[in-house]
């Protein structure tokens, strides 16, 4: 801090954020005056906001990274790519949720407005270029999520889940902030580039404050990502929240979390790579182990997918911890693919649910092939892809990460990851087995809206198409991290 002169920030770079913020406030206001019959307007405006934000993001995209707001905000290719995927995934989340919420009398403006604020939080996380901005985005997202989990106020499990999420999440936020404050103390700066430069030229690595800073930052990040042993909230929240909220939590925020990892660990604390690499290795292994092993015993598919998320986060960490450009782009590819697959997985639960019936037990998928061969096939694609069986996109994603790990000379880690993938494949294929080989317990015909069916089919086919032709996305990820 050298002078107190103020510069007018370049607002244009943050136009998508400003747009989403204004629209979210506007929708909140308009929603107040809508009757339940016209509530669909809220939904349509929310979707329009996402489309508008996408247009702005793409339109304003320039190849060069640009800073604004005194260096606390960055607009670059990685950010723009991730943001577009966040809009896309959120738009699909809203689409899937509409019917589900309406049937359960949860079709309120809050869901969409909180969802948009969450999107804003993610955008800020993605574009953050200072510790404070990251934290700001993260908390905006987290607070929206806490409220969304509790959306179904008369459900005991939902409120309990929200309570747990909030208490544990606040503690973790505190840890993250504690760690960040230590870096501020040592470096005297909150700017990610400045901190990064300072840490890179640091001679010794025995600075005790930095060592603690790394520990607390990683703890905070691990919690937000849901990595073991900071994962306890994940299954309870995924299970307790209404499925439409689980869908939201389980998809787009993961993309933002990846951005947070990149900004904070790679760009900011890149100089301390050696320190955080060890911690991430540990987190990755335990996450893959615990996630995959516990998932086997689950009878509830939302819980199973929660543990599967944990295991996938382990894989994401693998890519990041390599510390190579190749590893980062693999991790980015992995997380985008994961978000699309998870969208389909949770979406399928909502497709099969109807008024008064949650199709969230694995037994509810029994004999799906007899009820609807098409959606059984879509689910087959999704499960195969999540398990990482060739030629699915999940396989390419795993392969890319594993290759990056091998190239970083951590062969043993790749072998460990493969072993846990084998265990993991088991529970996904169990769903396939019950769909195709078991007799249906639930025989009612599917009762879902037309747009939901179309979107679900498109989702499954997108996973399939990405499996056949993953190059475009891998190339995009590689270019984004150039």
């Amino acid at each position, binding site marked *: 801090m050298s002078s107190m002169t103020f510069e007018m920030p370049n607002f244009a770079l943050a136009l998508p954020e400003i747009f989403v913020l204004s629209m979210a406030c506007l929708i909140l206001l308009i929603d107040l005056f809508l009757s339940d019959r016209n509530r669909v307007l809220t939904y349509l405006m929310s979707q329009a906001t996402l489309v508008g934000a996408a247009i702005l993001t793409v339109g304003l995209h320039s190849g060069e990274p640009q800073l604004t707001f005194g260096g606390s905000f960055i607009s670059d290719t990685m950010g723009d790519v991730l943001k577009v995927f966040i809009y896309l995934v959120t738009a699909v989340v809203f689409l899937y949720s509409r019917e589900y919420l309406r049937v359960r009398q949860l079709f309120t403006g809050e869901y969409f407005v909180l969802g948009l604020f969450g999107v804003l939080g993610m955008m800020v996380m993605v574009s953050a270029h200072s510790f404070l901005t990251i934290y700001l985005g993260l908390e905006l997202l987290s607070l929206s999520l806490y409220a969304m989990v509790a959306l179904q106020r008369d459900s005991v499990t939902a409120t309990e889940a929200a309570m747990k999420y909030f208490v*544990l999440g606040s503690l973790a936020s505190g840890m993250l902030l504690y760690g960040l404050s230590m870096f501020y*103390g040592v470096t005297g700066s909150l700017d990610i580039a400045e901190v990064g430069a300072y840490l890179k030229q640091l001679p010794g690595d025995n600075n005790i*404050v930095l060592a603690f800073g790394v*520990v607390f930052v990683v703890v905070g990040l691990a919690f937000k990502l849901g990595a073991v042993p900071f994962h306890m909230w994940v299954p309870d929240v995924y299970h307790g929240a209404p499925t439409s909220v689980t869908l939201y939590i389980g998809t787009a925020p993961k993309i933002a979390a990846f951005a947070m990892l990149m900004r904070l660990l790679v760009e900011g604390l890149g100089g301390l790579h050696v320190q955080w690499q060890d911690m991430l290795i540990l987190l990755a292994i335990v996450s893959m182990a615990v996630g995959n092993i*516990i998932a*086997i015993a689950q009878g509830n598919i939302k819980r199973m997918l929660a543990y599967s998320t944990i295991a996938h986060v382990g894989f994401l960490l693998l890519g990041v911890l390599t510390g190579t450009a190749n590893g980062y782009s693999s991790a980015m590819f992995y997380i985008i693919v994961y978000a699309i697959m998870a969208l389909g997985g949770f979406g399928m639960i909502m497709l099969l649910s109807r008024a008064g019936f949650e199709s969230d037990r694995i037994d509810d998928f029994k004999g799906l092939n007899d009820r609807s061969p098409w959606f059984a096939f879509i689910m087959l694609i999704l499960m195969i892809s999540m398990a990482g069986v060739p030629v699915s996109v999940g396989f390419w994603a795993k392969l890319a990460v594993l*290759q990056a790990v091998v190239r970083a000379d951590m062969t043993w880690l790749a*072998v460990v990851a493969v072993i846990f993938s084998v265990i993991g494949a088991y529970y996904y294929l169990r769903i396939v087995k019950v769909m195709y*080989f078991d007799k249906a317990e639930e025989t009612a015909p599917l009762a879902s809206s037309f747009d939901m069916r179309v979107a679900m089919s498109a989702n499954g086919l997108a996973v399939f198409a990405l499996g056949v032709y993953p190059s475009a996305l891998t190339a995009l990820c590689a270019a984004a991290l150039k």
Partner: protein
Amino acid sequence: MTLLLIILFPLLGAALPAVAVRWGRNASAGAAAGVTAIPLALLLFETPRVLAGGTIEAGWRWVPAIGLDLTFRLDGLGFLFALLILGIGLLVILYARYYLSQRDPVGRFYVFLLLFMGAMLGIVLSDNLLLLLVFWELTSLSSFLLIGYWKHHADARQGARMALAITGGGGLALLAGVLLLGHIVGSFELPVVLRSRELIQGSPLYLPMLTLILLGAFTKSAQFPFHFWLPHAMSAPTPVSAYLHSATMVKAGVFLLARLYPVLSGSDAWFYLVSGTGLVTLVFAAYVAMFKHDLKGLLAYSTISHLGLIMLLFGLSTPLAAVAGVFHIINHATFKASLFMAAGIIDHESGSRDMRRLNGLWKYMPHTATLAMVAAASMAGVPLFNGFLSKEMFFTEALELHQTGTLWWIVPAAATLAGVFAVAYSLRFIHDVFFNGEPVDLPRTPHEPPRWMKVPVEILVVLCLLVGIFPAYTVAPLLNVAAGSVLGGPLPEFDLAIWHGFTFPLLMSVVALSGGVLVYFALQYRFNLHMIVQSPSPGRRFYNRGLAWLTGLSEIVTGGLQNGSLQRYLALLVTVILLAGAFPFWQLGWYSGSRSPGMMDGGSGVAWLLLVVSAACTVIWHRQRLLALVFVGVTGLMVSLIFVRFSAPDLALTQILVEVVSIILLLLALYLLPQTTPRESSVTRRMRDAGLAVAAGLGAAGLVWAVLTRPQDTISGFFLEQSVPGGGGSNVVNVILVDFRGFDTFGEIIVLAIAALGIYAMIGGLRVERPALDPARRPWAADSHPLLLRVASRILLPLALMVSVYLLLRGHNEPGGGFIAGLVTAVALITQYLASGIAWTEARLRLDHQRMIGIGVLIAALTGVASWFFGAPFLTSAFAHWHLPVLGELPLASAMIFDLGVYLTVVATTMLMLVTLGKIGAREEV
């Protein structure tokens, strides 16, 4: 392009039989046959080029980011396998048309079969290891569907899952191995890999890479101890077994070894791993096969044994052994496919596969019996049949072995022993089924099958004979090019003649033949073979137990980690954070820095002690709510004293006032709560939590100590310097709040306002019935508003308001400011409520809190906006010093107006919150 077409025809054409089935079963089978025949023709079209030793390559880019391109090659080895896959595939399609019953969904069968065929062709034609791997896993998946085709049979489902678990798992091991191989070589392209023998064998990663790749090959080719999935896969329809377990699925592992033979073979590790596994499998499976009563079970173990034989040959690493291995692949494919088909015919026409019941079928189906006998003779290695030739080569190589030193006799002896067993089980297949008395209550009367069901068997049996009698004119060219591409170099001298004179290998064959006959009849008549029942294989038990163990482990971990209790989660979380936090201490050593933290003066010492004691007391007496509140108050006061000690009177003032307000708030809540909290947690749990808390506290203290004892720069110098020139005030804290951090303060008052409105919205209309007695059954105080208090509070009010104005005005230079002034005013007003009751106060104090909040926020916002009109950014401060007649010098900064907004908001929000909360449960005043 031809190569891609060969693979794509079955893969894409797989949909055709499903469509064609609506025109009948023949149409479906015809479509499948057509989709197979076209690539077969395409392949045969390339025969001259391949036999001339050429290699056809083709490639397209696919996923360059991970080094995967769509590249294919057709060399001798690939050609041989593709020929087997398509040729036998065509026969199986024909056979299955008659085998499958009316009830079976024929279309689905052919779809799965073609998918499998395409995947298999992909394996053998891939020129890229990753591509090969992709097809490899596709065969696992499609074979899963084929094995589980009769999904109404529980054993079919279990067999399918087991096959998938073992081969799919092995495939992932292979994935790891291939990744390592690619890492060593730097490419996944086969031509590059095959040129890098020295690089690969010299790499330190060679052994792990080899082990992983072999795991993939062994699981796929059902080698001991992973063999157990194959017998369980026999629950598949017999055409599937004939296809998968003769020429295709299980040969994929062998194919992989043949493919990578030029670069992987020759090392000691290769020799011991591959030939060791092969040898054990060869003997063990041949032994088990003799005791199988199920026709297909016998063939399954025989298959395992023969695969072991091929493995062993490749493991020996001599050129001639490799040739023998390739030759045996061809021979095994032909005779085993025909035997499976024969077994299927027997099953189909008699309704049983149990050799204890199927006796004397010769009378009923002599034609089938003849075919089966020829094929079985080939399996046993009888001269004039093709099995004999490759077995003879195997015996020769077994004798040539040098690596085993003085134990040279082990391999030949084991080979002979396995030969004996093979003859015995082949003999059993013939004797037990076609002779040996009469059938025992079969479900159906056996008879010959339809004409066309026998044709595929006949073709294969004729091939067995032709190759067996005229090897040089039939199989030699194919064998030469195939073996040539395995060896990747010149072929050794070998002679495919039937008669080599009286040699030691011939002696071994004679021993095997005669020994086999003896063993079989000894077993049958002396040991009552039919009565021997084997226990399930240990491999299967291991698999089942492994699954059970995994599920059990999963449940235990769930119970331990995920019991749904927030307390448990928090305890775990804190424990992990403690461990993570202990790590740097452990790594860097806990040491204090060079800087002295300074001595503590007496006053601070007392305050510190009081702070610690009051905090501890709060914890100890937290169940006594009122007592706990008192201690919390003491803690707060001590904290504000600490602020005073560190020269921050503003903070101290704010702290005191916030303390007062929050204690009042908590007291209001006490009103509705029982006096004490019951104990809910056990002693151990409290001890655990206490331990965690102490550890966390010590950790934080240690960290603070470590930081404070190191040299540091503070940022206070900057603010001290900038305060007067930058913000026009000498009270640094206030300047920071309203000027440097004006935006923050602005945000804070808005947050406050929203919080107050939120409380109002949530509990504004709430009415809780206040009990007439307190929980201890005592009446409330008779006089809720004592006179003394009322009078005192009224005298106090103007004084307090005066102080607050004073604080507000002087805030910019001396301790005070909008925040503190607002709190003072609020406390003064609240005192009126407490002393005189809500009704009395509200009647006299007509404040619209909501509107006041709005005005306050607006004033603050407008001050900020005003700076825009002077061309400065939001909230830029302007200041001047005015001299007023009575009050003296008055420094008037624009921040003062901002402060006024802060003041109004703070007063109104505090009042709104407290009054709203205070009204809960308040009885109507009398």
